[in-house]
């Protein structure tokens, strides 16, 4: 541990109300910490700038998954393990269940939370492409009340979000209207477990009368934020899956992303693999 625990203050209020009151009292001063799977890595490396931490781990208000006929509402404090094990998540939102299953190791999955994945705002976050294709909405809470925002507008840049300094993510809402789609997801990491994505994809598609009727494609690790491929989706919608479509879809997809060279991979590799994944997904729709 390269940080001195004496330099840090940690409080653990008993209720969500108490947490948002604290955030409101000193906006920006307190860093919420849930499972700690991101925060503690920075702490161990001596690189955690925030000195005041407020624990939101295991607050009952954040740990529920509520299912109504229209939507599923997942508390932001739910862990990857909670997601993996939930029946409706497994059956209707398999992209999210799969992403939860390949995030970190078992210990990370028992501690890491969906809300943490969202606010940490890494472009490589495993669950975010799934939230994009499911049209997720976020419920944000502060002493000023709750507001509901589409997830697609939430990430504004590299590690930047629309979260106000006194706000918390309270829940993630997914409409239950995707069970008729073919779901496709792949994580391309440096190894088969406990890896950070070089490229990841979550996609939904439906074919009718021999053509692509509806398609939703999102990629991670290929831009400053997780990205929905709007142009590619437009291109393929209404067309039959043919080799020429795969070639042009690859080309358009690669033009839509902005991958970089970093310690994990190269921009050229990421672009090519992103194109291949899009093509593989379309092939699967074609076979469906």
């Amino acid at each position, binding site marked *: 541990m390269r940080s*001195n625990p004496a330099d840090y203050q940690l409080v653990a209020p008993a209720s969500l109300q108490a947490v948002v009151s604290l955030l409101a009292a000193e906006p920006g001063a307190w860093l919420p910490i849930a499972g700690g799977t991101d925060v503690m890595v920075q702490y161990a490396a001596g690189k955690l700038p925030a000195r005041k931490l407020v624990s939101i781990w295991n607050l009952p208000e954040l740990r529920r998954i509520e299912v109504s006929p229209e939507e599923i509402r997942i508390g932001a404090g739910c862990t990857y393990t909670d997601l993996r094990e939930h029946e409706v998540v497994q059956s209707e939102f398999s992209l999210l269940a799969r992403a939860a299953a390949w995030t970190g190791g078992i210990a990370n999955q028992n501690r890491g939370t969906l809300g943490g994945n969202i606010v940490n705002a890494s472009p490589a976050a495993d669950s975010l492409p799934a939230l994009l294709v499911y049209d997720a909405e976020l419920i944000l809470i502060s002493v000023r009340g709750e507001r509901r925002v589409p997830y697609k507008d939430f990430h504004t840049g590299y590690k930047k979000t629309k979260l106000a300094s006194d706000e918390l993510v309270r829940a993630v809402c997914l409409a239950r209207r995707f069970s008729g789609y073919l779901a496709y997801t792949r994580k391309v990491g440096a190894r088969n477990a406990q890896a950070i994505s070089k490229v990841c994809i979550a996609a939904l598609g439906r074919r009718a009368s021999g053509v692509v009727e509806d398609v939703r494609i999102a990629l991670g690790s290929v831009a400053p934020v997780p990205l929905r491929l709007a142009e590619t989706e437009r291109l393929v919608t209404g067309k039959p899956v043919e080799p020429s479509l795969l070639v042009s879809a690859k080309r358009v997809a*690669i033009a839509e992303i902005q991958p970089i060279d970093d310690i994990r991979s190269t921009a050229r590799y990421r672009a090519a693999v992103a194109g291949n994944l899009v093509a593989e997904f379309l092939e699967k729709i074609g076979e469906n």
Partner: protein
Amino acid sequence: MTGDHIVGVSVPRKEGRDKVTGRAQYVDDLTLPGMLFGATVRSQVPRSKIGKITFGPGIAWDEFIVVTARDIPGKNVIALIANDQPCLADGVVNHPEEPILLLAHSDRHLLPQAVAAVSIEYDQLPALFTVEQSETRSEVIWGSDNIFKSYLVEKGDVDGIWKKADYIVEGEYKTGAQEQLYIENNGMIASFDAQQGMTVWGSLQCPFYVHKALMALCNLTADKVRVVQMETGGAFGGKEEYPSMIAAHAALLAIKCGRPVKIIYDRLEDMAATTKRHPSRTRHRTALSKDGRILGGEIELTIDGGAYVTLSPVVLSRATIHAGGAYYWPNVRITAKAVATNAPPHGAFRGFGAPQSLFALERHMDRIAQVVGLSPVEIRKRNFLQPGQMTTTEQTVREPLDLVRLLDRALELSDYHAKKQRFAKENELGTSRKGIGIAAFLHGAGFTGSGERNLSSVVGVEGCADGTIKVLVSSTEFGQGTKTVLCQIAAETLGLPYENVEIAQADTDQVPNSGPTVASRTVMVVGKLVQSAALGIKQTLMGSGLLGDSYSAEQFRSACRTQVAAHGQFRSWARYEAPADVFWDDDKYRGEAYAAFAWAVYVAEATVDMTTYNVSVDDFLALQEVGKVLHPVLARGQIAGGVAQGIGYTLYEKVIWQNGRMQNGQMTNYIMPTSADLPVVRVFFEEMGNVHGAFGAKGIGELPMDGPAPAIVNAVEDALKVPFDSIPLLPEDVFEALLAKREPQSVGGVR
């Protein structure tokens, strides 16, 4: 005698119960009264004069102990081979992360900020980072020519063969650095007392290496330095030489403050500062006859030693001797050198030079096969060493070796021929390509050349007052099974139950110097000495009439008790003596390089995913001849673990360097394979026996590190029909190679 064999049986590990119940004591579990914690201030630049050192604001510096090179009582070196590596940089640094000064405090949490608050002015000098840069000598950073060591091996008339050759095949092969990644990071505690001298406890492989280094550094006599090995959580060579540095640092702090000092590296410091496997470049030029027989060749081998000599001459030696592999070379010239660069010194790592030169050779054999128009199997069969033939150093093969039979068995066990055919057919369809590759190789056990003679190791076996037996060695346990197997050997020799034999903690005050625990030497060389020493105990008891020709365990214990009661301490010693027929010429680099070689054929099956360019190893067959297997579970574990480490070396583990510093020194970015990335390793043994080893054993610890890389890369070439001559081979490399080949269906469009 019990009549039941103990050797060859998988008895429980001696230290296994303590490890799984958490009772085993590692160095960080040990706390001494009044102990302080130490930390190291390191160079931020590769090569520089050191200017002003400032102790920055915000730190209560009067609470800290500070040690610089001026505080060293003896010589400012880590004594090993060339004695060129300082313990603390004095005026100049030669690599990033070089230790400059030391701090200690009673609160370990205050140390990282204090280390960061020390600012050092640097007057930087030009630095060299690659073998190629070092060879240009644009800067001379070591000696007169940047060369730590060179060897020349010559056999026959190489210059005369080229005009007789039907084929000449050339190739250049490269291997990268690799981090040992033991589970337990490095750590040491030192305590100093003017009367008793210096004691250190630590995670280490070679107690007497540390002992030697501390004597020179602290200017103490041998009896005033004591080194104790704590339970050690993995080593792989990474705790062969670097622990001397950490012990030296803890010792200097302990002398200065008069209290015990503990230094524990975290993973970031351990990966950034300690040794890694030597990167290498090997060039082959081989002359062949029409029918694919090697007429001769030139092998030029260069390893990157980093900034100081440390163990590079010895690593280079093993790389040189293994460069010709398991083949017969009528004529050969091997020129080898270790060069200096401004990176932290590269060091010992399982295989110790052999994985580098054998990767080159076994890739080159597949290249030769293609040029000559033979299969990878046939080219090897036509060139395998046979009994009576001589290796590149003119060591005659005296054992009844049959490598053709070994290869055939490996092919059969792996279903090689059927798979090769099937893959070729299936590769025409689908989104993945499969291939199968082989590597045939050898690994010499024990120290190279005259090394064992110079070590002159000593082992003791003690008959204790309670009638049990204790083995006295400095050979260390770090997960591989030293304690267990040496106790098996003593028990078998004495005809006692395994439970009646214990092994002493490796404490230089209590055990003789049985040599370092390296070089696949422990079971073979030290084990043989344990056997001799144990025999001495038995002969003494028989000679004094306390024991008959045949006896029960209880009769033995009773005899032993009587002996101790009558005569006091009862110990038997054995010292290594080189066999008469083992001769080595250090000047000509000729003769018996090793007392024994283990032989192996590995077969790897690989799949390349054409969507992601990932290579996965689907099946791995490891067949080896290792003399005699003394503990089947441990032996299989050594092979499977070595293969896993070899798969990491080949496909995953890439040290990313920038100006001599590792950029990905954390386990999230330095990728070692997980169980989800590894196939089941199918391990098979042949047992030919070995006159030089205990109960016929040969060394096996390093052997499995040598074969995976070439076998896997040969499989990838078989799958893709694209040659790869450099490891690690990452998906990005596969992608770029396919792009260069422009295989239209397989490569996504790239802007």
